[in-house]
């Protein structure tokens, strides 16, 4: 892959400023287009090959144009695999996890930002500490915990452990701290309780942060793979990434069947892609929120 060119190409030394600027611009576009291809062409290939016959995909992997064009791969995705089931499971898990995360993370974020209660500082420090825990090293004990509390191999096991995340709490806390206190105080004086103040006054003001968190949670839980590996083993509970992974590493008799696999992977990518196109700026914000604030 072309990862070697890491800088815009050097420019001519001296000379006419106009020429130099133009050369710069041409070079700039060249770099942009080159990397645009590097980053997007694999998706084009994926789409093209998912619509090919298997021999065609094997013979012309580089070409984006199917010849002949066939929906056989997609046909087999829906008739020959459990794809619809995986899709349903993924939707269920993602929606519940997203709702849960947004709600619980906002609650905790609000409490850490605004409510004065004993142990707050310690709790916040703990949240920060927990953010550093790499999930992938906890696969074995997570499996044990799920077993121990009887959630293993159930929808609850897929969902509950993902219902809160420290990073989300952090985002919400940071945001709530940026809202003027006076708003809440007015509500309090009018006699609203803590939860009412939070729910009907503060939360509506946190829309941008909520959207960011919703998107991060949706993307995160839609793509989540290792967790499903240790929380369920019943094929009826497989989510899309899990189903896809088993499709790929399936043993004897499955064969390569690239159009099918690429098609399934494509379908699994589409929801996030759509979300990305619509809510792009929230994705960007999600990726480096704090950078503007720092």
């Amino acid at each position, binding site marked *: 892959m072309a990862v070697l060119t890491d800088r815009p190409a050097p420019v001519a030394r001296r000379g006419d400023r106009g020429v130099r600027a133009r050369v710069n611009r041409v070079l700039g576009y060249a770099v942009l287009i080159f990397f645009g291809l590097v980053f997007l062409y694999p998706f084009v290939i994926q789409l093209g090959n998912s619509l090919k016959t298997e021999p065609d995909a094997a013979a012309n992997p580089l070409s984006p144009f199917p010849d002949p064009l066939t929906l056989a791969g997609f046909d087999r995705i829906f008739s020959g695999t459990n794809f619809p089931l995986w899709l349903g499971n993924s939707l269920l898990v993602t929606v519940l996890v997203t709702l849960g995360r947004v709600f619980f993370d906002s609650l905790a974020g609000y409490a850490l930002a605004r409510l004065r209660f004993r142990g707050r500082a310690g*709790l916040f420090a703990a949240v920060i*500490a927990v953010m550093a825990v790499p999930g992938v090293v906890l696969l074995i004990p997570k*499996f044990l915990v799920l077993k*121990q509390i009887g959630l293993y191999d159930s929808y609850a096991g897929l969902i509950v452990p993902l219902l809160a995340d420290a990073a989300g709490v952090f985002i919400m806390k940071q945001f709530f701290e940026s809202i003027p206190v006076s708003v809440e105080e007015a509500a309090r004086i009018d006699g609203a309780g803590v939860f009412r103040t939070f729910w009907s006054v503060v939360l509506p003001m946190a829309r941008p942060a909520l959207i960011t968190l919703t998107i991060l949670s949706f993307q995160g839980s839609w793509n989540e793979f290792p967790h499903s590996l240790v929380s369920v083993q019943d094929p009826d509970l497989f989510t899309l990434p899990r189903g896809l992974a088993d499709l790929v590493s399936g043993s*004897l008799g*499955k064969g390569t069947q690239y159009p099918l696999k690429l098609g399934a992977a494509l379908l699994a990518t589409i929801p996030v892609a759509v979300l990305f196109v619509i809510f792009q700026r929230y994705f960007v914000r999600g990726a480096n929120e704090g950078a503007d604030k720092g």
Partner: protein
Amino acid sequence: MTPRTFTRAALAGVAAVALLGSAACGSGFDDSAGDTKQSSGPASLQILIGSSGDAETKAVQEAAAKWASSSGNTATVTPAQDLTQQLGQALAGGTPPDVFYVDASRFADFASVGALEPYGDKVSNTDDFYESLRTAFTYDGKLYCAPKDFSTLALQINTDLWTKAGLTDADVPTTWDQLTAVSQKIKAKGQVALALGDTRDRIGAFLVQNGGWLMSKDGKQPTADTPENLQALQYVKSLLTNGYAKFPKQLDAGWSGEAFGKGKAVMTIEGNWIKGALQNDFPNVKYKVVPLPAGPKGQGTLSFTQCWGIAAKSKYKEQAIKFVEAMTAGEQQIAFAKAFGVMPSRQSVSGQYTSAFPADKPFIDGAAYAQGPVNAPKMDSVLRDLEAGLQGLATGDPKTILANFDKNAKAALGG
């Protein structure tokens, strides 16, 4: 993070854990050391199979449904994508399926930790099973489970490509030298001669043909590092380095059968399961099956077998045994043989099998000179290390691969 906040975080963490500790110690694991409570009456059996393909899945599902409806039980057959992993998680969780395939190579692992119900003496007419298969599933003198079926390796030849390469029936290789000679001719025509699985389960056959094997006859001592084995591996290495033989991955295939079916290799070494797979995925490929070429020390092949394991933790052992009984009955095994090309584990129906499938003679004949799998406990990581060595055989040193196996196996068996 300053030390102070870190301490505080740690304290908060410990507090949270202490808080949860009490909540977490609920149920979940079934620790009853004694027998699991048995339920009589209609059972709902969970059956996990490591299927060789859709044909096998369908056949087993149909057979199970037939048994269920005639016996008043229910039986759910689930094909595992990765049997070992799924079974491992299920056993660790104390909720294993009632009945599952157990491969001979992993049998000892399961038996040694008490995961299997030793029900062998409750199955009727066990003497009818081939003795070598019974041995494969005996641990500490007890027959643990009924052999499901067995299979052996043979050489498959794509007859169209064979003729195209200018070869005739007279060229079918019966010795290593002939194998080299035809490979050379095929390569000259720009074809790959042999698709060879990069595992001990294929390459191992060459060891047997040269009078060697990985383990001693009693299965207790590693015997990989011998001149016979070394010569065999050197021969396979020469096939690889000359480009006569290629691993499936080199041919963009998941397994040799796929490469063979796609016509990427003229010959392959696979077991009887290849029949069903080719029928399903590549119905137009014309091929024939011949015995593996003999090595300097005569003919040799490998045999594989699985049994119907019953979980020690199953609630329906009695019904599960009845289920296994039905699945291993002679007639049922013939039905399975017809569906996905395995050979019956019961000798009483072997005649019926050979008359139904005369083309499978090389597979059945292989039983006479076949070597079974390594079946000692704790050997899996050792064997996988061997596989890793074999994957690099084309550039690796055969002697090192074999010596490593002996060293690791000694540690695993001794410890």
